[in-house]
């Protein structure tokens, strides 16, 4: 039988103080300019992206006429060109430029794919429609041979245009869901995210059609797992505690991260993450926090540097008396992941985070969010989250 919890009214003081601080400072004041040795990427509307496509093609044609040695210049996306900007806590792309020439056999294949992707992007923009990466691959299976290559060409094309992938109208398949105190519009339809039942709104990858209209939320909670999201949705957590809940069922894809970034920037709300107490959960948090290496060129539009790791922290397992049966031992791969994370600059800089990861190593434990249910199904919504948000117990 589940243990009875004492229902308490939490004031979420710490979360509210953080929110008031954000509102007082305003989003602009919190934003630090990007370093000069990184490339600048813009999130463009359809018209401006099309203009960039035409300018790029004009440049290529001009180079062909002038030099007779046709080539394409694009920012390098290799790891040596990925820079961690400490001030903004973001992974960014440096200014190294690579030249792909038409006259080598490997480059010709690459360039042909790249030009084909540009052609597809042009078609999508002219028709004002969107396509998934999978659809792009199927437009020319013979040329791309596998989706990995078409995906790479799509990312190269976006980098070449110095814009986000979403601006090219090539999108990822819908994955995450969002629910809570938020009203948005999708083109001409107004959507109330409080009125969609427990399932919530599937985050549209066509974010250029989405606009935030109204919200009385005071924070955003990003949840790693569907099961935890379901628990919070069923409890209508946002009714008692004004918030927006969002899940990506694992690592956030581009649409989820971009939507979260937009929510956080436009509404100026504090963002918290609730992930498993394991290195993969911490990794998921880190991707929301500072972006992924693969998509470092669009980190400023995908990363949410002010996101706080609310839980489940390793130290929570003892603090909330999670029983041994709900704790798991670290596997080899977990230990490697923790060590990799401990080597990252952004973890080294954050002492609380470093301590928590070291504690996991020392105690040789991990646990899922669901481990909190050992105190009852409502423990997460009635005690754990409100207490942490009231006391400011986050990293």
């Amino acid at each position: 039988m589940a243990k009875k919890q004492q229902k308490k009214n939490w004031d979420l003081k710490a979360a509210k103080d953080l929110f008031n601080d954000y509102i007082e400072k305003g989003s602009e004041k919190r934003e630090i300019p990007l370093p000069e040795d990184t490339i600048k990427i813009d999130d463009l509307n359809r018209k401006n992206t099309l203009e960039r496509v035409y300018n790029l093609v004009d440049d290529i044609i001009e180079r062909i006429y002038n030099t007779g040695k046709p080539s394409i210049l694009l920012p390098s996306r290799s790891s040596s060109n990925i820079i961690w900007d400490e001030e903004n806590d973001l992974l960014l792309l440096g200014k190294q430029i690579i030249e792909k020439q038409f006259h080598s056999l490997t480059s010709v294949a690459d360039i042909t794919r790249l030009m084909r992707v540009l052609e597809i992007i042009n078609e999508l923009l002219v028709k004002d429609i969107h396509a998934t990466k999978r659809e792009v691959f199927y437009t020319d299976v013979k040329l791309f041979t596998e989706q990995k290559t078409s995906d790479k060409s799509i990312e190269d094309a976006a980098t070449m245009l110095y814009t986000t992938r979403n601006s090219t109208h090539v999108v990822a398949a819908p994955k995450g869901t969002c629910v809570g105190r938020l009203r948005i519009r999708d083109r001409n339809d107004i959507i109330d995210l409080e009125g969609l039942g427990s399932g919530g709104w599937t985050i549209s990858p066509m974010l250029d059609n989405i606009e935030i209209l109204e919200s009385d939320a005071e924070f955003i909670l990003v949840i790693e797992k569907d099961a935890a999201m379901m628990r919070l949705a069923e409890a209508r957590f946002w009714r008692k505690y004004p918030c927006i809940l969002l899940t990506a069922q694992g690592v956030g894809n581009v649409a989820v991260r971009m939507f979260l970034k937009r929510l956080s920037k436009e509404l100026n709300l504090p963002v918290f993450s609730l992930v498993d107490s394991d290195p993969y959960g911490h990794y998921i948090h880190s991707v929301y926090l500072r972006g992924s290496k693969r998509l470092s060129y669009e980190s400023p539009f995908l990363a949410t540097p002010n996101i706080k790791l609310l839980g489940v922290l390793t130290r929570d397992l003892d603090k909330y008396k999670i029983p041994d049966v709900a704790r798991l031992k670290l596997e080899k791969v977990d230990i490697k992941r923790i060590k990799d994370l401990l080597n990252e600059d952004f973890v080294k800089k954050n002492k609380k985070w470093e301590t928590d990861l070291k504690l996991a190593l020392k105690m040789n434990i991990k646990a899922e969010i669901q481990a909190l249910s050992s105190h009852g199904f409502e423990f997460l919504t009635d005690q754990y989250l409100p207490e942490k948000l009231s006391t400011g117990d986050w990293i």
Partner: protein
Amino acid sequence: MRIFHKKGGGIIQLVDKKNMEEWSVELPLIFIEYIREKQLEKYNDTSVKKEISAYLDEILKDVAIPRLISVLEGENEEETISALERIKEISKKNVDMARPIKPYLDNLSKSKNKSIVKITQEISNNFLKADRRKELAKKRKIMQEKEKQFMAGTISGEDYAKARKEYLTLKE
């Protein structure tokens, strides 16, 4: 976003009216109606409700109506009909909000499109009804004054009857 602070803490954020310049012509009105009908009651704070209501009026005056006017001056009849339908709705609920449209109605009533003429007529009728209501209120005030004067014996029965007749004619 436009921020509104609740007295007891908490805030409400609404999209800035500047963003609406890019919207389709009917969307600012749909937004105004949506917030008024579905959200306003939920805010549980009289002063914030008042502020938001004023902001919605501001959107109507500064964005929604001017956008509608630009459509009324255009040549796309389908857009004109859709805009006129919206104006008709506004004129029913709050005629003063639709007043900036009035000067355009004369021209529209001469249109060759029967639907445009019909809706234009309905809007004109709403204006007429509203004007009559205003005048009646004015006359009612005068009538009440006359009644007092008549009872006090400061005006003659003839003067009172004349005022009464005017009032009743207008009322009918």
